[in-house]
């Protein structure tokens, strides 16, 4: 066992820091720090992706043959950590971390040539059409159908919880192409141009005032057969391969660390009865309890990255990260809101960036409650906490 970062890792960290100092535009950094919504940052993200791409770092987790790096998992972790620490824009997950790897792992040469460069440059966004109204955590009962007609698929159905569908140029969809086999074997993976006739996107109003999640209605949408990824019927397998690919993502470790830091800053800035909250014992107790949990989460991530032998298997470790990380997102953002006291009650429009000029409303108030509200989703999407526990009980203990 060696529980320290090596000298090479330390040096790598310095290199990343220097790069960020030199290259991350200050205006982007500031907006990212103040971000209250994903959807409104697309332009910044694209600018930043181009900067990263110029350095060859826009998709470091990809295979080198496709423009990735040969960094160790630990280095990738350091890279991500430093980007978060510096308030760089977050990767658009669906584009760089989902469809990119799917295409280079399972796509045709034509698909690779057509899509990968634009993903690396962040030219446009991709959205993910997996969930359906009747199938939240239960993908087996998908109903969206794609019937082969000549050199096209005719797609009919409805997707839900499709992030950023309203501003994405392309989407990747799980669709049923075969009704005559076991549900998992009849699902295929299809790339769809979101401009195709027959697609309607409806934004769903969210608890925090955003409308970044969408419903996508597909009504006789004709999709060229060449947009099928890999083999028909393998969609489920490809989608699952992704999960094994990114086992530490759902920990939201970098988010949790950054937001806990922010909570401390708020506690230093806010007062009650003339006393800084950071000097209030109950506030301190909440902060340190979360600090110790975030520390645990970070090391749980490192254990997965460094491939610690785990008697319950890697999926169990990943599931643990998801359960822990999502609870922490909620606890930390809720603490932020609580630290604001009654000021937490003000609604900040997630799209309108104008803040009140009033000194009654310091900058750190904006968006905190919004984050706490939308964080309720973290124990829901990607397999709800309850579903995670079902799975974990089964794989770890055979229950």
């Amino acid at each position: 066992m060696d529980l320290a970062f090596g000298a090479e890792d330390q040096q790598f960290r310095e290199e990343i820091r220097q790069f960020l100092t030199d290259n991350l535009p200050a205006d982007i950094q500031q907006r990212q720090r103040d971000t209250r919504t994903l959807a409104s940052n697309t332009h910044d993200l694209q600018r930043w992706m181009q900067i990263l791409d110029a350095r060859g770092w826009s998709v470091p987790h990809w295979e080198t043959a496709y423009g990735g790096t040969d960094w160790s998992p630990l280095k990738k972790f350091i890279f991500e950590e430093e980007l978060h620490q510096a308030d760089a824009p977050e990767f658009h997950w669906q584009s760089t971390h989902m469809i990119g790897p799917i295409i280079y792992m399972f796509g045709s040469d034509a698909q690779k040539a057509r899509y990968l460069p634009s993903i690396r440059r962040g030219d446009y966004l991709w959205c993910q059409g997996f969930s359906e109204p009747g199938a939240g955590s239960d993908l087996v009962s998908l109903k969206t159908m794609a019937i082969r007609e000549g050199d096209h698929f005719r797609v009919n159905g409805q997707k839900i919880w499709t992030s950023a569908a309203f501003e994405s140029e392309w989407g990747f969809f799980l669709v049923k192409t075969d009704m005559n086999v076991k549900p998992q074997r009849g699902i295929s993976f299809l790339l769809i141009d979101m401009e195709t006739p027959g697609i309607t996107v409806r934004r769903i109003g969210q608890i925090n005032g955003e409308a970044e999640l969408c419903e996508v209605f597909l009504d006789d949408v004709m999709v060229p057969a060449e947009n099928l990824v890999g083999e028909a019927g393998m969609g489920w397998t490809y989608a699952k391969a992704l999960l094994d690919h990114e086992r530490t993502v759902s920990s939201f470790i970098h988010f949790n660390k950054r937001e806990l830091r922010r909570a401390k800053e708020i506690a230093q800035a806010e007062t009650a009865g003339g006393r800084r909250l950071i000097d209030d014992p109950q506030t301190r107790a909440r902060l340190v309890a979360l600090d110790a949990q975030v520390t645990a989460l970070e090391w749980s991530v490192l254990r997965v990255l460094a491939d610690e032998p785990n008697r319950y298997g890697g999926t169990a470790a990943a599931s643990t990260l998801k359960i822990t990380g999502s609870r922490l997102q909620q606890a930390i953002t809720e603490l932020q809101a609580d630290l604001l006291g009654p000021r937490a009650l003000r609604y900040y429009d997630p799209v309108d960036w104008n803040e009140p000029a009033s000194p009654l409303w310091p900058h750190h108030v904006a968006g905190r409650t919004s984050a706490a509200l939308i964080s309720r989703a973290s124990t829901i999407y990607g397999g709800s906490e309850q579903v995670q526990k079902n799975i974990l009980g089964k794989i770890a203990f055979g229950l």
Partner: protein
Amino acid sequence: MNFDLTDEQTMICDSAERLIRELGALERRRERIARGEGFDRDLWSQSAELGWLALCVPEDAGGLGGSITDIALLMIELGRGMASDPLISSAILCSTLLAGSDWEGRADWIEQIMSGNGRLAFANLEPGDRAEWPAPRATTLKAEGNGFVLNGAKLLVQDGEGADGYIVTASIPGEQSQALLFVPADAEGLIQDHYRLIDGSRAADLRFDHAPISGGQVIGRGDGVAALLEDAIARASVATLASAIGSMEACLDICSDYLKTRQQFGQPIGKFQALQHMMTDMLVTTHNARSNLYHLLSRMDGDRDERAAALASARLAIGQAGLSVGRTGVQLHGGYGVTDEYAISHHYRYLMALEKRFGDSQAYGAMLADQLFGPIAA
């Protein structure tokens, strides 16, 4: 001791339930919020017609003089529809302040409020406040010429947007106690800023910049003001907590219905034991929260210290209960729970807002500790 409703209480609850059924549709609420309206004007005028606004005003001040229990029962019903604003801010809080004063404008304004023709809001909160309770104010009233001038800032004046006037707390240099002032919405030297809150209601910040105040605008000053403020805030707090109980009870209905209708993995999700247990946790929490409210109601007419302790206790317990019920309710709804399109997220936001009105759980926990154990020894 008995928990049966009187005939009058049954009548109040029934008519409130009816009105909420009529006007409480989620769609109506969402459209109203989208229009930037902080409360439902039809509900407000109906509240006047049905005598609810008068119910909140003591008999000797010209009202119907409902008991605090009557008011709480009404608020529970309105809370189910998240519709107790601005009854609390205007008809309960400001009316109580007026009724307890001997101000010359008292009768007029109480009449205005009861009839639904006028609305006042209570401007007390200042930066750094964690709870509203009589305390020295940074907003100051100074003698100048024949009258006074007012300087300072108030934030989060609940339902302050569109109010006809404000009852403002201020300190007078050299005096221990506070003053209560009446400031009309169009007063000179008053700058307003309006905004929406997370529960869709609306609030105002008030800035007083050398605002001239005449002697006739002083509702009260001197020793009686603290007790009056305590009374009014206690009554408004009861109404707030009762609203939360109603909202939690609505969450039980909403969620148990959802569990029975929503299908997943080939069966209603209510068949899953884990979700059943979450649902029963919500029930236990809600049931006990109502008990906390009863305890508070039983202490409202007694000793002031006992009332303060009961109030702090109920705020602490019900505040946390509301958050817990709201959170679990959202979780039970899966993805739909975090949309604006299902009622549950509205209740969660409403319960979050109620938890912080007049002070949050932590502040009231500290207050309860002071009541039970005395102040912290240095």
